[in-house]
């Protein structure tokens, strides 16, 4: 197996072992109900994390997604509360806003040559501020169409429900996998992660790709916001604080190199599921406190970053071996 797939395999293995361990302790955890809830509860995080995966593979970071989710929720709630616009139209409108928002951040990162970290920090402040300006209070959403969407689900064998938003997350992941690994845009994203100057020399449209990556992240954050508002039936400007950190953690646990250039969209899904599994376990256990989630995720982050470092070291020494072998074969000749 290629070393590049090792982090992904490790993630998958950890997930399977963890799930097996949970199952041994709580046999109820192996049911489509739990799986369905796992997908539904983490739908908004998963969708946002797909965008984050692209951003991180390209060597950037997007700190704004939590705020964008909150902004989207508040925007929808306020618009649906105070106007007669149909939710679908509101969805289109808000997606246009968040996509543009991401695109503008990408343009600033590219044209002003500033670190993504600080630019998206400004975006984070701005989006959260706009959410506050729209409403400081939590605004409930009562709309028949929302009720209709929330009622849509597919009953899986065993009684679990694959809800619309859970299904949407899975669909977004599938689309993300194709986009990352089977399109030219995807290869440009990896190319940027390998090094912007080189990518530029090789003819990658750096400006267009950078803007598209952050626009994609903005779009998916907006979509995550829509999902979040369906999930909570409300818009609240203080919601989804720190979601960007969870998304980054899921991406890294999913085997994507935080320094960019290598990664898997599918791995992010497993990362999300691992994090969801920890929470589900804590709920099943009932005595453990929720802060253990943070500590365990921190530990997982640490071990995966360490694993990636080890792989880099290993491949470097591989190359040294290669070089020595080359020299030896020459000496013999």
């Amino acid at each position, binding site marked *: 197996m290629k070393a590049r797939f090792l982090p992904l395999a490790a993630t998958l293995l950890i997930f399977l072992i963890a799930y097996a361990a949970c199952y041994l302790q709580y046999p109820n955890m192996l049911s489509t109900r739990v799986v369905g809830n796992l997908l539904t509860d983490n739908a908004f995080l998963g969708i946002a994390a797909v965008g984050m995966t692209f951003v991180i593979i390209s060597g950037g*970071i997007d700190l704004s997604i939590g705020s964008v989710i909150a902004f989207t929720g508040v925007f929808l709630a306020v618009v649906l509360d105070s106007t007669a616009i149909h939710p679908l139209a509101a969805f289109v409108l808000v997606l246009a806003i968040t996509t543009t928002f991401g695109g503008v951040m990408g343009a*600033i990162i590219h*044209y*002003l*040559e*500033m*670190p993504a*970290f*600080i*630019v998206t*920090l*400004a*975006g*984070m*402040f*701005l989006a*959260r*501020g*706009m959410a*506050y*300006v729209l409403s*400081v209070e939590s605004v409930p959403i009562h709309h028949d169409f929302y009720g209709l969407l929330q009622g849509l689900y597919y009953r899986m064998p065993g009684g679990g429900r694959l809800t619309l938003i859970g299904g949407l997350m899975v669909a977004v992941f599938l689309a993300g996998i194709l986009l990352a690994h089977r399109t030219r845009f995807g290869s440009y994203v990896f190319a940027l992660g390998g090094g*912007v*100057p080189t990518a*530029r*020399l090789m003819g990658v449209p750096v400006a267009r790709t950078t803007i598209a990556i952050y626009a994609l992240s903005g779009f998916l954050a907006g979509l995550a916001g829509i999902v979040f508002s369906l999930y909570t039936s409300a818009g609240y*400007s203080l919601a989804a*604080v720190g979601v960007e*950190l969870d998304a*980054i*953690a899921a991406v*890294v646990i999913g085997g994507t190199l*935080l*320094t960019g250039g290598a990664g898997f969209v599918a791995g992010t899904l497993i990362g999300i599921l691992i994090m969801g599994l920890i929470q589900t376990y804590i709920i099943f256990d009932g005595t453990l*406190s*929720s*802060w*253990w*989630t*943070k*500590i365990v*995720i*921190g*530990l997982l*982050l*640490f071990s995966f*970053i*360490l694993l990636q*470092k080890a792989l880099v070291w290993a491949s470097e020494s591989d190359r040294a071996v290669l070089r020595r072998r080359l020299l030896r074969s020459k000496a013999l000749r």
Partner: protein
Amino acid sequence: MIAAAQAALRRFVPQLIALATILALNALVFPGFFDIEFQNGRLYGSVVDVLNRGAPVALLAIGMTLVIATKGIDLSVGAVMAIAGAVVAATVAGGASLATALLFAAAAGIACGLWNGFLVAVLGMQPIVATLILMVAGRGIAQLITEGAILTFNHQGLIFIGSGAFAGLPMPVLIWLALGAAVTLAVRRSALGMLIEATGINRRASTLCGINSLVLLLAVYAVSGFCAAVAGVIIAADIKGADANNAGLWLELDAILAVVIGGTSLLGGRFSIVASLLGAMIIQSINTGILLSGFPPEFNLIIKAAIIVVILVMQSPAVQTLYDFLRSPSEVPTETPRQLPGEAEAPESLGRPQ
């Protein structure tokens, strides 16, 4: 000596102008802004308030400046504040003396810093990655200490640190001024400043010069952890309790912003603690100004975003190049009267793709 002082002063001009402008605006919307009263042995007034409320960010900015100068970043300071607050609260709640509690909190902060430094310097992780780990896990650790609740205390000595006054000034103000002065003196009166800058610009070359960059990095992150611990203690003392969830939440971003406003590059190298402290005060003046002017506080974030954008534009390499280009025709002939042999290499490097 005078020339050096002038050069140093010129370094602070943008920050001083920004601060003066914001203070003037504040005075405009709130005429009593510069009024200061003396009551019950301490000074009161909006300006004092700015200095007092800005203490946590100012403290964080001290350590953050050093970390950023080494081409690093410390995302964990907010979480470290929560840990230190939890430690100090748990220790005094357990009946220990104030000195012991403070010692424990400081030790916790330094330990967190050393952990970050270990990941960065020894394991060679990217700073943003390394400190992210503690940023995520740190609040969990703090909650572990407070057992999920807001751990309150009623220790007068500790509360004095947060809300007491000495010589007319609130304790937090005195603490950040003292720590800022101490660290500035420590790095500038010794060779530490130069060694930190060298390490930040080119770590490999610095190591080859015989600089012990490993110890230097460990120390810098430890200082950052210590500053975060002090800030954490002040916040806990101020609200008379440790709130693991909210103490220092997002302050790491304000601290980074303060350093950036202070003109230290996120790419490491030349740094100025004083300018970062000015940056912290600029941020706090804006916060206070918005509060005073009756604007809803929610505008705060939007204004911060606007500031970042303005600074980004000013510091952007692309804009710098444009600026150099615009002013070059008039200045260059006087600056370089003759082309030195081999010096044409320099202009070539300007156009190299980043």
